[in-house]
């Protein structure tokens, strides 16, 4: 079953710059897709269009058969900047979606508590975002999205601001959480190794204008060993694809 259908989507900004050119893509339900490419390939634009933050200039996007016209609770978004509400404690942040849906106080607390423990933060529920580390903040943000039961999880370089060690732990955590609560995931990253570690399918994007350069299916079973021969050779192959695009930008 198709979860996300992207049909001939283009985006041009007012200055006539074509950010995305006729991109079409089908993402099956509960698949894990990484959009990979250098900055300026339109990967975040594409994600923002699925989220409903940005309107496509031409083409359309369907999520579960419904055309996307604006942001909605069926598509949860995890941002690189965490985007936690600083005046709400960890648990109050997770409660936000259920509160919006009108769930009674006691019930939404129960739901929030369940998702906070799913991400391993049960003991930190009364802390404010400023009291949490980057990794913890992103865990809260993931719990907040999942507590809202979206059918699609959109992640825009979610671990980009984390240090290397935390980043690897968070990738493993994400796979564990995804295993327990299956969703269709679209994950934007510029890290090749991150995309190979996580994704079923890697969409390598070309720049100027943004198009799909190549789709790479990753069939290695989880957990994936970053030092295995298959991993390393796939990494090398994708690196070559991405390098061509970086070279096109004329910056090194």
């Amino acid at each position: 079953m198709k979860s996300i259908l992207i049909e001939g989507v283009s985006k041009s900004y007012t200055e006539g710059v074509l950010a995305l050119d006729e991109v079409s893509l089908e993402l099956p339900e509960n698949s894990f897709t990484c959009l990979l490419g250098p900055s300026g390939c339109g990967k975040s634009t594409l994600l923002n269009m699925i989220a409903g933050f940005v309107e496509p200039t031409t083409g359309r996007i369907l999520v579960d058969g419904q055309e996307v016209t604006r942001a909605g609770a069926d598509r949860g978004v995890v941002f690189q900047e965490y985007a936690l509400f600083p005046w709400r404690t960890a648990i109050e942040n997770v409660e936000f979606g259920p509160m919006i849906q009108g769930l009674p106080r006691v019930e939404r607390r129960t739901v929030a508590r369940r998702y906070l423990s799913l991400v391993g933060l049960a003991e930190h529920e009364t802390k404010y975002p400023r009291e949490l580390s980057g990794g913890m903040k992103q865990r809260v943000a993931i719990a907040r999205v999942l507590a809202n039961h979206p059918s699609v999880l959109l992640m825009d370089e979610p671990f980009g601001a984390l240090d290397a060690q935390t980043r690897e732990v968070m990738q493993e955590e994400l796979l564990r959480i995804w295993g327990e609560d299956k969703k269709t995931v679209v994950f934007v990253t510029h890290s090749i190794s991150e995309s190979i570690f996580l994704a079923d399918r890697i969409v390598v994007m070309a720049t100027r204008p943004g198009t799909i350069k190549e789709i790479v299916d990753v069939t290695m079973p989880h957990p994936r060993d970053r030092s295995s021969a298959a991993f390393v050779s796939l990494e090398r192959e994708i690196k070559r694809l991405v390098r061509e695009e970086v070279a096109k930008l004329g910056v090194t």
Partner: protein
Amino acid sequence: MEAEAVRQPRATVTVAASPAKATERGVSRRGLSRSTILGLRVVSLVLFFVIWWGVSLLNAHVLKVFNPILLPAPDEVLRTGITMAASGELAKHILASLSRVLWGFGIAAALGIVTGTALGRSRLLEHLVEPMLEMLRPIPPLAFLPMMVLWFGIGEASKVAFIAYAAFFPIFTTTIEGIKYVDPVLLRAAASLGASERQIFWHVVLPAATPSIITGLRLAFGLSFFVIVAAEFIAADSGLGFLINDARTFFLVSNMLLGAAVIGVIGVLANVLLRKLEGRLLRWRGEARGQA
């Protein structure tokens, strides 16, 4: 080979140990201890009164620069205060001033927050109304005081209106800023969690603007006290400003200083109270601010 050996088992890495906030207890900047700071602050206050006393005594008995009744010593002012407090006169003046300030400030807060929010939300309104207010803002409120008396009479209304006018601007300005500059990623996050425009306003925009609005309220409250004295100079039969101005007519310098001192004390107390309230409302921002 070596690279392999260095690699550590990842399972032992626990993510995100609680962030180490390096706040050194008991020691503040420049290495002064808390008790030293407190001591210095007390000495500063004591020193103030000693200097006042000294100058007053020196003038009365040694230098004789001007008539001693023009510079009474602190103990005389205190005695005047006790007499006036006992007769109930002081309380009457304090209450008169306070009620004007509270009314004027209350009206300013309501108007400032409502118009600030409306203008912060609507580009159209902003461009329609802001130039008007920007034109008025640089004019010192005092310039309008005589007119206020003509328009609203010599009763309470003119004073309340004057305070409301003066206190309006800081609240209005900080509210617009707060409402306009909410982090856009928070708005996106709320929208993707299913919040409607209305819910976003109440649950995201308003709380995000609160620190800014509170700053405006605090500034405005200080300003209210600042202008009440001037308003009571012009036309009043009660209030701390009246107390000072009335005493001038009779060379009662002790009364004048008493009026000023009481205003100072009320100002300090009000500020402490507002800081407390701010600390409570903005608990999420931490205790780093607002200790003074």
